[in-house]
């Protein structure tokens, strides 16, 4: 077969170019440490590498979220520990105060300390985290959890947060609450006190418990009025723009009168309560009963106190009773103080403080369990990341030993091609025709 001289030359050059291309690609692989330089090098590998990188990045994000969650739970735990101390001290003081040898002045002094403890407790319930969020206000984290409201009958603390817990995504399939609501920790505490029994709710916030104790130590006792309290939280407001609603109220066994809430939108519990009060004022009940908003719930309180007083709500038209959480009908009686109001109150407070302590203990246990879960999740994430990283490295990283030996082979091949070219080009019959 005839070999065309110019083609043979061109093929020799092409062979060298080919070897150079291969060598330069291996060089690029060696300098980047990557096996896959573009997806076409290994389409399946490139896709897997992208997927694995995404998984890895997501897990990095989970780990960082997890750290955030841990910080918040640890902060909550230390706050709860302080609250625990406050209640322990309050309990000691309450036990101490029932000693009959104490004088009124002694009790007043103890009362002063209980007041201090109450304010300390308020501070703890209104704790802010580094972001400036109130940690016990649920989703309403821009609002302090508790506020003292002197217009309430009797004056007391109103909870301004909600009952929600924020969830953090700390794993592909795992989320965890980064705190607890003040509702669960401080507000929704079963109580045996007079106030709780007369409202029918059976619950009292730990702040009101301390407040009642301090009042009792100072010799102040509030005779409970006829009170009924709705079980529903209407703090996010109600919408009656469809038309007015009404219901019947009766006070102290008197005849019922219809109270109308005008059509409109009521943004929160306070707005609703004031609309109801306007309705009461324009009815025959004027001055005998008041509506008020406490901790997002609507309460009706009679103007008279004592066991003879009652408030009865009935005849719902428009859904107010259901919305606010009243039965139809529902009656709330007042109560008398009893023969020994001091001992009764302190004893009830002691029980309530114990219940509150137990609640804080339970919450701390739950926080601890969540911290444990975070540790487990963190280890799982870390293990998963290590595996993924290994997988990714296997997919996209260069096997240096293989690449270096390939580089050497290609280098030799290029040198061979160059030498062969030079030798072959030297071969010409013309060299011998002299």
């Amino acid at each position, binding site marked *: 077969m005839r070999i065309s001289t110019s083609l043979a030359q061109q093929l020799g050059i092409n062979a060298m170019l080919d070897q150079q291309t291969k060598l330069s690609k291996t060089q690029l692989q060696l300098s980047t440490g990557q096996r896959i330089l*573009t997806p*076409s090098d290994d389409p399946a590998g490139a896709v897997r590498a992208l997927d694995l990188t995404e998984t890895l990045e997501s897990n990095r994000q989970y780990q960082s979220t997890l750290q955030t969650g841990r910080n918040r739970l640890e902060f909550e735990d230390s706050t709860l520990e302080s609250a625990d101390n406050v209640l322990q001290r309050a309990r000691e003081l309450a036990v101490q105060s029932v000693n009959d040898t104490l004088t009124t002045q002694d009790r007043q002094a103890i009362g002063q300390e209980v007041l201090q403890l109450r304010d300390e407790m308020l501070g703890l319930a209104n704790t802010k985290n580094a972001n400036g969020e109130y940690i016990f206000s649920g989703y309403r984290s821009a609002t302090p959890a508790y506020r003292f409201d002197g217009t309430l009958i009797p004056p007391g603390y109103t909870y301004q947060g909600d009952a929600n817990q924020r969830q953090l995504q700390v794993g592909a399939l795992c989320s965890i609450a980064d705190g607890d609501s003040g509702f669960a920790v401080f507000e929704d505490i079963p109580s045996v006190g007079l106030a709780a029994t007369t409202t029918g709710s059976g619950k009292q916030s730990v702040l009101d418990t301390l407040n009642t104790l301090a009042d009792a130590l100072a010799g102040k006792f509030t005779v409970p009025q006829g009170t009924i309290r709705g079980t529903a939280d209407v703090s996010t407001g109600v919408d009656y723009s469809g038309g007015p609603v009404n219901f019947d109220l009766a006070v102290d066994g008197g005849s019922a009168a219809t109270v109308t809430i005008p059509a409109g939108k009521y943004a929160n519990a306070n707005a609703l309560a004031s609309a109801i009060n306007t309705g009461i004022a324009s009815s025959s009940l004027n001055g005998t009963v008041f509506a008020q908003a406490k901790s997002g719930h609507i309460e009706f309180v009679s103007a008279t106190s004592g066991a003879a007083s009652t408030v009865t709500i009935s005849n719902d038209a428009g859904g107010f009773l259901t919305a606010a959480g009243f039965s139809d009908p529902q009656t709330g009686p007042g109560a008398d103080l009893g023969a020994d109001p001091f001992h009764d109150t302190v004893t009830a407070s002691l029980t309530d403080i114990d219940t509150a302590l137990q609640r804080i203990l339970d919450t701390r246990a739950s926080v601890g369990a969540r911290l444990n879960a975070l540790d487990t999740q963190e280890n799982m994430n870390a293990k998963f990341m290590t595996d993924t990283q290994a997988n990714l490295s296997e997919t996209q990283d260069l096997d240096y030993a293989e690449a270096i030996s390939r580089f050497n082979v290609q280098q030799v091949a290029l040198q061979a091609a160059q030498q062969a070219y030079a030798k072959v080009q030297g071969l010409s019959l*013309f060299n011998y025709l002299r």
Partner: protein
Amino acid sequence: MTTGLLGIATSGLMAFQRNLATTGHNIANVNTEGYSRQKAELTERLPQFTGAGFMGNGVDVASITRSYDDFLNTQVRTSTSTYAGVDAYHRMATQIDNIIADQDTGLSPSLQAFFNAVQGVANDPTSIAARQVMITQGQTLTQTFKTLNGQMDDLRDQMNQGLSSSVDEINTLAGGIAAFNQQIVVSLGQGGGKQPPNDLLDQRNLLLEKLSQQIDTQVVAQDDGSLNVFIGKGQSLVMGATANTLKVQNSAYDSNQKDIALSAGGTGSVLITDSLSGGEIGGLLDFANRVLDPAQNALGRIAVGLATQFNTQHQLGSDLTGQPGVDFFAEPTVSYSGTIFPKSGSTGTVSVNYRDANQLQASDYRLDFDGTSTYTLTRLSDNQVVARNATGDFSGTNSVDGLDIQLTGASSTSSFLIRPTRAAADQIAMNLTDPRQIAAAATPYAGPGDNRNALALAALQTAPKLLNGKASYQDAYTAIVGDVGSLTHAAEINSTAQKNLLDNATQQRDSVSGVNLDEEAANLVKFQQSYQAAAQLITVVNSTFDALIGAVRS
């Protein structure tokens, strides 16, 4: 008798001189592209009859021929055209391959960073800083979409320019071939049809080879020595001494898409884009149809999916001030400015809306109205008729592949090209600028600490909400990377294989037509020796004559 020998000697001298000249011509053209080795064909002169029988009369040069094999040359042309096609395709595919999976500029890292920022807002819903980061990452993400899309547009421009320069080249070559045809017919006539104009034939052949680099050709030889060249599905490019011209023109629908038309004399022009294959042009068109358009449509589909689905979830939430969430992204739209193209002469108005990004296909569509009653909607990726209405009404909501398509007011034969996702990656943008407007809280609004909607937004990252519930945004993007990577990989293998075939064919052809210098050196020696021998004959004649004269003189 002596005059006979002198004549023989002279004929030998003449013949070997011609042989030496031909060898010299071969040596001189050893590096000439398209040159076929030539050879002086020698033949015996007619003998003279004498009483003693037929006496030889010397040698004649019958013809100068070239070593040429038509079959092998056709094979080289076919291989050239195939290789040029896959090479152009591979060259372009490599560029897009380089763009899409870049660790820094690809979509993957931006998507990841954006959703990390969403998680950041879920972790700290009240933090303005975290919200600002989410907006900034949203901007980066939309910018990445735009950049990738812009790079694809650049590739399309590059491809269109390639088409233009190919067409220019083809026109020049076709003109050249026609001119050579004319010259060859004349030259053949000069030799009475017996003596081939070798060098002209070589040069025409070279032009044919260059032509096949641009496009697949069929060549038909004519009796008078000219060649007719056909392209596409039998459209004539060169007929004897006449060459038709190709031109690049805007498509009837979309000015960004180019059509190639063949104008034959005064009879107007025919569109032949769809029938072209092979060569640079075929490779470029193939690249657009198989790699660029699908990839850009698929990228757009992710943009549509992300924008519409993220917005839908965002609107379900409440912002930091308790207001219902507004659009987070500015959503892409299908409109007359860039994605709906009426063919000229069409009447009526088309409106297209995204209904469900999950069902979107990465395809273009054509909506035809026959002028009387029938509407036909064709999906162009598989040429499937996806909607037909023969009752003269297409004004209802026609839901096809996640799109709502309407045509109202059409009164004549009309045709519309619809590219639902082509420009979406360019159109997606940020709508929100105020970090407080990020709807991290659920509805009804429960407070600034509520992160439920932010969690729902973050969950979109892995939710399979594209490709009929089979892919997340990231999955849909890796699918593009995988597709482009595979196509490029296949093109690379194909290109190497075709290059080998071409080398092979060239080697075969050159084993017949090529010049080997060693062979020519040997020929040089051979013909030189023959020449010297013939010259020796003259000496012999001379001395014989001298001997005769001397005998007479004495």
